[in-house]
Structure formats: structure tokens, C-alpha cells
């Protein structure tokens, strides 16, 4: 009797498990009474654990500065007004402003600044930024004067202040994106022509979802080259640029 009970399954299975191949959605999970089977419960919690840890991951400033040397380009480090992760999450305004004690020379006159910042997933930058730079910089080096910047606790708009302080025509901000359960380490690149503090998002172009299971470094680099080329040709970025480019974006 007791043996029988111990072998009884308390789960209800879903006979449409084959549909799982059609979507990444969490379907056909089965149920234990009114709840999830243990296996599915823990699987969700596992994904959530990776995602939460990604948000609280730290930008590896020292290692990144070391790695940035390999490009043989000017490298600058900046600080925002944010002092810790909790403040970063609650005060997006502070992540858009440089701290006052910065010490950089003015009037460097760059064509392009690549700005690395942690955003909402430092690990995405720790792992993805250098490979992307390795892909794109050799393709631009001869034509453009390029600078590299690293800034902790930055939002996308931090690029505008940095560009003003270094006198740059174009910025590409590499930033960790808000992690989803299935993509905890996703990087985004926001490009802006003629960046100035106070401009709004429709002035920017965005390449999103750069991660293992999303957009590849190679594809991201090609899109980035396109935005750089077109921005300099048409002297603009943002909505107006994207509208003429739907073919390339949607591929």
C-alpha cells in the first residue's frame, strides 16, 4: 500500500508539450494542484537568480581599462553623480550627470567616442564590449579620430555630457540592458550625432539585444558601421535616420 502511494505521481502533465518548440514562452508546464510542478518552479527561480545577479554585477573597471589599451587610442575614465547601485536604480537623473570633480582637458575634437557603461547589467559590458570594439575599430581607424571612455553607473544620456567635455561629433554608448529572464547579459548600443545635454531619445539610434542568443557581435558591428556612416553623411541620428533604413534593420 505505502509502496503504491510513494510511486503515485501528483502531477498533471500537459499533452501539448510538442508546442514548446514553437515558442520560448513557458508553456505546457503541467501542474501540481493549483500550482507549478517543483521542477518548473525551480527552473523559473534559477533564471530569476541569474537575472538578479546580473543587475547587481559590478563593472570591472580595472580590467576594462587594461583591455582598452590594446586599441592604442586615447582612453578616459569618468564618474557619474551616482554613488551606489541602489541610488543608481532609484535616480536615473544622477546617472546622466558627471560628477563635478572630473578632470579632463577640453577641446580634444573627436569624431567618435565609444563610451562603455554598466547600465542595468555590468556583466554584459564586462564580456561584450571589448569583442565589439575589436570588430568595429579596425574598420574605422583610418578615417576617424576615435576616443574610448569608461564610466561607472551611467545612463545612456551620460554620453551627451562626455561628448561635450571632450568635444565629440558622434557617440556610441555601449550599455548593459534591463535583463530579461532569458537574456540576463544583454548589451545595447545607442548612437547619437551631435550629442548635447538635454536632447531626447528620438535623436538616437539603438542596436538592442546583443547577447549569446540574440544579435551577434558581428551583426551588431555591421549595424553600427551603417549608423556611423549614415550619421556622418546625413549629419543626423535618430528617428529620421532609422526611417530610411528599415530594410537593413529588419533583416
Amino acid at each position, binding site marked *: 500500500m505505502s509502496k503504491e502511494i510513494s510511486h503515485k505521481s501528483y502531477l498533471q502533465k*500537459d499533452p*501539448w508539450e510538442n508546442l514548446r518548440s514553437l*515558442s520560448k*514562452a513557458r508553456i505546457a*508546464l503541467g501542474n501540481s494542484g*493549483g500550482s507549478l510542478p517543483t521542477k518548473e518552479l525551480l527552473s*523559473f527561480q534559477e533564471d530569476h537568480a541569474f537575472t538578479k545577479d546580473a543587475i547587481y554585477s559590478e563593472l570591472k573597471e580595472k580590467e576594462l581599462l587594461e583591455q582598452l589599451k590594446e586599441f592604442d587610442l586615447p582612453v578616459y575614465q569618468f564618474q557619474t553623480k551616482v554613488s551606489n547601485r541602489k541610488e543608481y536604480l*532609484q535616480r536615473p537623473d544622477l546617472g546622466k550627470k558627471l560628477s563635478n570633480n572630473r578632470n579632463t582637458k577640453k577641446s580634444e575634437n573627436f569624431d567618435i567616442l565609444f563610451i562603455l557603461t554598466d547600465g542595468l547589467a555590468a556583466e554584459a559590458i564586462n564580456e561584450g564590449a571589448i569583442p565589439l570594439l575589436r570588430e568595429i575599430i579596425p574598420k574605422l581607424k583610418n578615417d576617424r579620430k576615435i576616443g574610448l571612455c569608461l564610466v561607472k553607473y551611467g545612463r545612456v544620456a551620460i554620453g551627451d555630457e562626455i561628448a561635450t567635455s571632450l568635444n565629440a561629433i558622434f557617440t556610441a554608448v555601449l550599455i548593459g540592458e534591463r535583463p530579461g529572464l532569458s537574456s540576463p547579459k544583454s548589451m545595447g548600443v545607442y548612437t547619437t550625432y551631435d550629442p548635447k545635454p538635454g536632447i531626447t531619445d528620438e535623436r538616437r539610434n539603438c542596436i538592442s539585444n546583443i547577447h549569446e542568443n540574440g544579435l551577434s557581435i558581428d551583426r551588431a558591428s555591421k549595424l553600427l558601421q551603417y549608423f556611423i556612416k549614415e550619421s556622418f553623411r546625413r549629419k543626423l541620428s535618430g528617428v529620421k535616420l532609422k526611417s530610411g533604413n528599415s530594410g537593413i534593420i529588419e533583416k
Partner: protein
Amino acid sequence: MAYKFTLSGKTYSFKDLKTVLAKATPARSGDALAGIMAEDNKERIAAQHCLSEIPLKKFLEDLLIPYENDEVTRLIIDDHNAKAFESISGLTVGEFRDYLLSYEVDGEILQKLALGITPEMAAAVSKIMRNQDLISVAQKIEVVTKFRNTVGKKGHFSIRLQPNNPSDDPKGIAASIIDGLMYGCGDALIGINPATDNPQEVSKLLNQLDDFRQHYEIPTQNCILSHLTTTLEIIDKAPVDLIFQSIGGTEKMNSSFGIDLKLLKEAYDTGTELNRGTIGNQMMYFETGQGSSLSANAHHGVDQQTLEARAYAVARKFDPFLVNTVVGFIGPEYLYDGKQIARAALEDHFCGKLLGLPMGCDVCYTNHAEADQDDMDSLLTLLGVAGCNYFMGVPGADDIMLNYQSTSFHDAMYLRKVLHKRPAPEFEEWLLKMGIMDERGNRNEISEEILKLKS
């Protein structure tokens, strides 16, 4: 006029009514970000004392956003029903709380009162109510709406089946719909946030949903949550059941959504003419959420909860089928953690119901908020007790298109079980007929046969 309150010998002075409201609001990150939150707990309680002594009438005279500058203010004032207001016109905010909680004030009385209450009065009283007060009063109020089924009856709650897909792939969407229906969800609506908001794509999705609904004779309604202008563009050609739009509590906010009251009226009139409902014709579907006005720089220094309540004035003008506060979607800079999200959801549900709206809630969070599934379980249970009209059903609580966590089909089963609540009556009948659920609300073992029928 300045508002004052003296606390332990110290006089706190608030320069205007919106400052009293903002400082009296339970702490949340969005008001801190806007720079309008109370400096400390003492200032907050002083503001709450001060607020409790303000007569309700004052909110009709001392306007938070000037009448001439904002069409939402004009709507609130012009549509205020003085006759409905009469019975509470002598009360202060504090007395109003006692009145709402009293035994003799029941749901019927509150329903008659709704048009006499302005959003600012609702927001004001909510600020001096605890979570349990917000639940106690809200659960008195039954707001029932009808289209192809009946949503909001006491003892029932409904679920929006949300089969979002990052590329709007019809097969992926169908898989999620089947999953949801087999778990007894989809009675509020089957509603997709489209990945691309263009007329052809949206029409395609609408046709897919409509074919599905008709084929299996599901007593529910569909919606593609495209921008209102997109919906209006295709409304003559595609099967539009519910008409969706995000709305906010100021004219400037709505203008940043690309809409105004005139456009909403046009949509409402068009939907009324379509007359696609079978047992009713409430066809507007609105979504809101605290913090949207601040994020669009359209807040006029008014706290985010009061602005949210003002959005409900916009909603109720158009007799909606559903109003959904998407409470945790906006992120930790507006609602930092599970506690703030839960408080905001209960406030929104209470204010909406008090104003006469069919309130539902997307119990949700983004991953950078300090919240997890336990917080969602708690909030879902609280709102279930409060009598919330509907919740979201997302496969496994993980929306793979919008990248946030909401409530799942399983969560709906849980809540129905522990609170003895049932789906919309017409939909429940369909579930029984299909053999998906039994009389007790338990899931049947789904046979391969039903499935063949479905796929």
C-alpha cells in the same frame, strides 16, 4: 493659500494643495525623483493630519493643475455631479475615510456616489488609509461590465490571456493561447501587445484571434494593444472587439501618448457603432500606471498617485470594459520594491473602484525592481480579497516580448482555489462544456482528443 499643521510645537507649512497631497503620500521612489516627497516621516504625518482636516469641497475650488491649462482638469470639473456629491459635501477628507469604512455605507451607496467624487478626493482619502482600509472599501464595490461575457461580478474574477511573442509569430502566439485556455484563462480578453505597431501586422493578428474565437465559440473578446490611431486606421476592415489605449492624468501626458480627449471620443463613437458585443457593448480598454507623467515630464509637480487617479477620470468618460493599472512595469525609479508596488496597486484599485471603474491590475515587476514572485503572490492575494476585476495570465509569468514578470495561468488557478472565485459565468460554462475544468474549478486531465480539436 497655504496649508499648515502643528506637530509637537513645530508648525509645518505647505505652500499649496498639491504639496499637501505629495507630502502626505506614503513613500515611493517616483515622488522622491520628482523632488516632492516628504523630507521625513514627521513631515509626512504632519501633511496627513493637515490633509485629513481639508474639506472635500476644497478640491472643487483649489485646482491642482489650472482649469485653463489642462483638459483633464476641465473634464473633472465640468463633469462633476453636484447632486451625487451632496451627501458628502460637508465632510473633510478624514471624515470621508470614516464614512467609507462605516457599516451603513454599502456598495450600492458608493456606486451612486461615484460621479460626485473627483480623482483628487479619491487620491486624498487613499493617502490616509492603510492597506486594509483600501481593501475593505474597494471590496464593497461591484463594477460589472459586459461585451461577450460578464466581467466583475462578486465571487468572480477574470484573466486576460496575454500570449505576447517577440516577433508576433502566429504559431508561437497560438501555442500560448492554447496553453492559457487549457488552464481556464482568457475570459477578460485575449490580448496581445504587438511587437510592431503597423496596420497590416495588427490586422493579421486580429484576424487570427477572431478566427480562433469563432471556431471554438469562445465567449470572450479580443484586442491587439496597438496605438489608438493604428486601431482607428484598420477598424473598418479588421475585426476589432476592444479598443485599447494607454492614458494618463494630464493633457500633456496624453499628448505625449499621441492622443487627446477628442481622439478618444472619436474612437469611442466608432466602437459604439461597430456594436460587436453580444450581451453588452462596453468596448474601451485602458491601461495606466503611476509614474508615467513624471517619466514624460508632464506631471506639473503633482504626486504620481494623484495623477494616476486623474487618469481614471479620463477612463470613466468612455464607459470602459476594463481599466488596467500596470503597476510594476515602470521600474524601480517610480516604485522601488515589492512594498511600494503593492501599496500603489491597492491605491489604484481602490481609487478606480471608488470612481466607478472596472479595475484590473497587471500584478508585475521588472527585474531591476526589488521584487520577486513572492511579492507577486502576496499582491495577487490582496487584490483578490479586494475584489479586483481581472489579472494577467502570462505563460509561466514570464513575458518573453516585454521582458517583465507578471502573473501566470497557474496563479489564476491558485487564486480561484483559495478564494473560491470563478471565471466569468459564460466562460465558465464553456470551460465545462469543453471538459477543461470540472464543477469544483479543478483542471481535468486533458485528453489528447480535446487537444486535436484545438490544434
